[in-house]
């Protein structure tokens, strides 16, 4: 009694190697990210549970756990939070904990703002991307030395014309797809790149690997803050705004499959001037100025 086993690891997700402070959050993560049905977005509790749901409800078999990293996709292993993780994976995870990246801190815009020549000055807030306004971790985000502008000049491509052959595709990364690629990009004209610009761009690139601190493979469910002081204003990383919106009752009820037909003419919509042109031979493009009045005096929408 009293001698608790020392906790060496935070709860982590077997499917994507992500760590969590609390096992409850881990469970939420797994439900949202790995046990969510891609068809109806129902959250299940385990991999086998998801599989059974999908087979029974949607008649579709799922053989892989969604968003799992390679080798961890097995849907038949029953894992719930930290329970059920194979022993060897537990050990290898502890080993891996050694080197962890730092968080990135973001400033507003990373491209340098060019001074407008003929335009009045822009609002000051957008003018200071390099000044790290109120940025507590600002300095950690720019670890890269300035990238010399010289390599910019070396991007001229060999003038090999495109040979669209399937066998060529993978083996010839240097061949330009599009003939003009051989003429070099407009980068070549960029003989005086601004050092500040380059540095920030370089920093932006270098930071890519650190943006997602915990997810070794970039598999993320809920969006985590990229730094302590920044938050992404977007609901989920694994579903687009359009998918989310389309699943809302408002839009969903009209998605009941319908027969192929000409669109119905809803009445009572307030679109005063959107007249329905009469069918057949309306010279829409031919003489746009002369839309025959009859054409737009027909039915209203």
């Amino acid at each position: 009694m009293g001698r608790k086993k020392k906790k060496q690891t935070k709860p982590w997700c077997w499917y994507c190697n992500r760590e969590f402070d609390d096992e409850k959050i881990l469970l939420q993560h797994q439900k949202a990210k790995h046990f969510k049905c891609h068809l109806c977005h129902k959250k299940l509790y385990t991999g086998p549970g998801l599989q059974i749901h999908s087979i029974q409800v949607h008649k579709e078999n799922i053989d892989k756990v969604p968003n799992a990293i390679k080798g961890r996709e097995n849907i038949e292993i029953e894992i719930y939070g930290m329970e059920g993780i194979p022993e060897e994976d537990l050990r290898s995870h502890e080993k891996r904990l050694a080197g962890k990246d730092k968080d990135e801190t973001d400033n507003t815009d990373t491209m340098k703002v060019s001074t407008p020549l003929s335009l009045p000055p822009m609002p000051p807030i957008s003018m200071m991307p390099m000044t790290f306004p109120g940025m507590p971790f600002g300095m950690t985000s720019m670890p890269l030395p300035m990238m010399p502008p010289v390599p910019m000049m070396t991007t001229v491509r060999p003038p090999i014309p495109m040979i669209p052959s399937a066998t060529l595709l993978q083996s010839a990364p240097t061949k330009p797809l599009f003939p003009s690629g051989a003429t070099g990009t407009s980068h070549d004209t960029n003989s005086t790149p601004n050092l500040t610009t380059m540095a920030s761009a370089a920093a932006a690139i270098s930071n890519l690997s650190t943006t997602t601190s915990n997810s070794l493979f970039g598999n993320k469910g809920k969006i985590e803050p990229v730094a302590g002081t920044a938050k992404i204003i977007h609901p989920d990383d694994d579903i687009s705004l359009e998918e989310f919106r389309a699943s809302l009752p408002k839009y969903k009820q009209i998605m009941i499959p319908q027969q192929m037909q000409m669109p119905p003419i809803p009445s009572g919509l307030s679109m005063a001037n959107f007249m329905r042109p009469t069918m057949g031979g309306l010279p829409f493009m031919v003489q746009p100025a002369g839309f025959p009045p009859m054409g737009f005096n027909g039915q209203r929408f």
Partner: protein
Amino acid sequence: MTTLFGLSNNTTATNTLGSNQKDLEVVQPPDDAISCMKFSPIALPQTYLIASSWANDIRCWEIQSNGQTVAKAIQKHDAPILSCCWSDDGSKVFTASCDKTAKMWDLQANTFVQIAAHDQPIRTIHYIQRPSYTCVMTGSWDRTVKFWDTRQATPLKQLTLNERVYAADVCGPMAVITTADRAIQVYSLDQGPTEYKKIESLLKYQHRCVSIFTDKSKNPNGFAVGSIEGRVAIMYVDTTNPSVDNFTFKCHRSTPQPPTNTQDIFAVNDIAFHPVHGTLSTVGSDGRYSFWDKDDRTKLKTSDVINDQAITCCTFDSRGQLFAYASSYDWHKGHEGNVQTKKNAIYFRQCFEEMKPKQKK
């Protein structure tokens, strides 16, 4: 400078602070959020704008040279329309909808017929015109990309991807598709759609938009991808030195303000390249649009927040004179951000001068 609209010079002169007060507004905008907008191709002497919406409709306006907009026509799907495009000759408009169909609108005959079907909502639609063939490419949440003849009920070709299609672009012989797993697939179109290259994304968060850019001879040689984490990656397809040529930059993020010093990071909703200058615009959930020069790696301009709501999409007209952007809710704050009183609006402004790359000193 004489403006395209024949309005006074101060229209453009006073416009530079990004206030949209002087930006012109398209009449009779859709009743719900605008999902996609495209100007008519250069083949047409007049300028038309099409916009698809969550109110299930696709609308077409004529943008007259005096800046007036005239509502021309409208068609409807059975569910929200997520994407739209023109045929190269400007005679047809194609729409992709949550009703799992794509339709072709013949503007002269005013017919609106189904040309494609998927098992899930169709997210992207693009017209492909090559010397040897023409077709329409649709990308769907059913994880397939299909190429349609428009006259046949079965696709010419179908590609199965690992994940749902989130964004795509087509430019000349190149197509780029990106999916929910952030995979980027480049296709070569000249010998029929052929897989050309898979490219590892520089971005670590969900991809939201992709736009192909061209070199000085107007041949496509790379693309820009925008993510929900206020960041855009500029990536060249055939670069020998990707670590130098390819880069990312941050955008659509708030400036941290005391006392919390919290920075809000917004999604990049759309990217468009200027057809003449090769510079680009981004629009975000933060309600701003920004103009950038990717070659100089500089920002040209950022607007104020427009109407206190997101900008969902943007586009340039084929002559590079006009920049149009749609102010409507993109659902980035869920239900609580859905304020019915905010209006859906499409604005456009003269952009030829402000999109010019800055001269080197």
